[in-house]
């Protein structure tokens, strides 16, 4: 039998039972639709993360923490006593000497301390509390920041600041460039070290005089960056950035956790972390090794990326499994439809055999029908998945955009997914057609023709 005749016969037979064909194909449509939207969601998330890693140049970033910060065993609830006093050895303090030492390592491009200053940002009389991050001018012009308007810092001493577009909403502005040239007042809180003595603490406890003082610095917005959709331990993560030189002049609370206060008292206050940018990802491992050798804890985002990747793999597998359940149910529908069809066409199969159809011809007639159902289901299923994920994407983005989150494509439809979904649907339907086709081929023409 010719392929063309097979196709025509299958179309004619399915058309004869339109409603049943449609219902069966609809089962497949739902299964494939679920599978497609789930896989595309998994792929979309993966793509978003990968792209932000790439565009932010994170594959050659390291973060260095002082040796006793975040030490896992310190946070073990069973050994709470160990937490009572920090014992970190002097070697692990992240001071300027450590910074210089790391900067000299082979493959290191830039090292800049993680400095976040709690401050109040004031514009048009509105106050917003923010952790203001200090970054060197060199970093502000690197790919780690993505500008939607303006530029990076001209120098570390420039009286300027960079904000993310998430601030637009807070100040009732629309276009990123509307923020350029605006003067913002950063009101930082300083800590008076001279008062860190028994008398000063007594005064502080009695509430008479707190060892804090505030200072206002007026800065001009020179750049607006895109806010990051991907939340994670990024080296650049804040809404407001100021040049490191300006930050150095500001009064600030120089600690980010409670141990810093004790250490400050002991005069060995360092940075909470150092951000290291490497010349290429190839230096990640050697630099990591050397810096850990110095007694610091090193955190490479690439490692985290591998973790994220593993997480996505698992997520994809779970989503695929959910879709697969729908497919299995749909394929049972195909088996049911085809078996019904055999019973109804019992005499017809007998006639075809009597006039010369071979077992193979009969088997193929049924295979063509079930794969045609699969093709229909696959095409419609892909369309359904595409439409549904488009709607979900639109709705989610609508609500998230009202909270200042930028537009994200949560779903991704690579070309292989289109073809894969349809091919998979046809393959599953063919598999579902195996039993009915075998059964049809085994029909005994003598018995079938006796059926009147």
């Amino acid at each position, binding site marked *: 039998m010719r392929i063309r005749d097979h196709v025509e016969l299958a179309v004619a037979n399915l058309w004869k039972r339109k409603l049943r064909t449609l219902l069966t194909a609809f089962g497949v449509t739902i299964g494939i639709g679920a599978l497609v939207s789930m896989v595309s969601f998994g792929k979309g998330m993966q793509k978003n993360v990968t792209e932000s890693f790439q565009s932010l140049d994170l594959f050659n970033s390291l973060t260095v923490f002082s040796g006793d910060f975040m030490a896992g065993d310190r946070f073990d609830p069973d050994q709470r006593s160990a937490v009572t006093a920090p014992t970190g050895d002097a070697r692990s303090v992240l001071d300027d000497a450590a910074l210089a030492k790391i900067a000299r390592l082979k493959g290191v491009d830039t090292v800049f301390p993680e400095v976040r200053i709690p401050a109040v940002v004031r514009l048009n009389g509105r106050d917003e509390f923010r952790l203001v991050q200090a970054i060197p001018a060199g970093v502000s012009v690197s790919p780690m920041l993505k500008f939607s308007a303006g530029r990076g810092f001209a120098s570390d001493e420039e009286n300027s600041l960079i904000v993310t577009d998430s601030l637009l909403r807070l100040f009732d502005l629309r276009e990123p460039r509307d923020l350029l040239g605006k003067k913002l007042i950063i009101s930082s809180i300083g800590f008076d070290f001279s008062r860190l003595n028994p008398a000063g603490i007594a005064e502080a406890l009695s509430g008479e005089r707190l060892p804090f003082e505030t200072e206002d610095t007026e800065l001009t917005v020179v750049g607006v960056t895109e806010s990051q959709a991907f939340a994670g331990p990024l080296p650049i993560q804040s809404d407001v950035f100021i040049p490191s030189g300006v930050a150095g002049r500001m009064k600030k609370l120089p600690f980010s956790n409670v141990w810093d206060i004790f250490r400050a008292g002991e005069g060995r206050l360092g940075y909470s972390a150092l951000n290291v940018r490497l010349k290429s990802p190839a230096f990640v491992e050697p630099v990591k090794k050397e810096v850990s050798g110095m007694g610091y804890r090193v955190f490479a985002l690439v490692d985290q990326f591998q973790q994220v990747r593993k997480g996505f793999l698992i997520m994809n597998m779970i989503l695929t499994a959910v879709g697969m359940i729908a497919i299995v149910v749909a394929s049972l529908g195909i088996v049911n439809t085809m078996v019904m069809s055999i019973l109804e066409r019992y005499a*017809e199969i007998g*006639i075809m055999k009597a*006039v010369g159809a*071979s077992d193979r*011809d009969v088997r193929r007639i049924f295979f063509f029908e079930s794969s045609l159902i699969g093709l229909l289901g696959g095409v419609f299923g892909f369309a359904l998945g595409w439409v549904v994920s488009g709607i979900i994407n639109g709705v989610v983005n609508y609500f998230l955009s009202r909270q200042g989150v930028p537009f994200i494509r949560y779903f991704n439809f690579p070309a292989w997914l289109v073809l894969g979904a349809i091919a998979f649907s046809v393959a599953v339907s063919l598999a579902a057609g195996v039993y009915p086709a075998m059964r049809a081929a085994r029909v005994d023409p003598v018995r079938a023709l006796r059926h009147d």
Partner: protein
Amino acid sequence: MTGASGSGKSTLLNLLGGLDTPSSGTIEIETRRISEMSREELALYRRSGVGMIFQSFNLIPGFSALENVALPLVFAGMAKKERRARAREGLTRVGLEARAAHRPSELSGGEQQRVAIARALVNRPRLLLADEPTGNLDSRTSREIVTLLAELNRTQGLTVIMVTHEESLAREFAARGVRLSDGRVESEETWR
């Protein structure tokens, strides 16, 4: 071929037509030993070595007369255009060219049996097996059908083996008569 019901007429015909296989013994038709054929070979034999017609016509209800006649050619892998030409030719031979586009339900019993004959002969076999072809027809139409078969025998050299209950009709047209009883040949006579 005559005999009481259950005497084995249909079984013999099905064996000759390659629809059934014998549990013992051999069947030879011309030079072909069909009792030893594989399922695949039997399908091929049914396709072009033999034609069969039945009491209940066994046409496919959803197909037109032309499509029914062309069906064996579909399994032979013939192209559609050629198929239709051959099928039309076959319908003309049984006098039904005007009814080509009609479905079996729109045809009379006699017409349906003519379509079945055209279908059985479309692959030009040398043997036609007829299992009570007149069983569902009135006597006038029965005569017409048997006349057509006799004519095909005379003009095309087609061998026709027909099972029937109507012995008078058989005696009138057939050259030989075989009477079956309990699966055996009871008597055999040559009439002309």
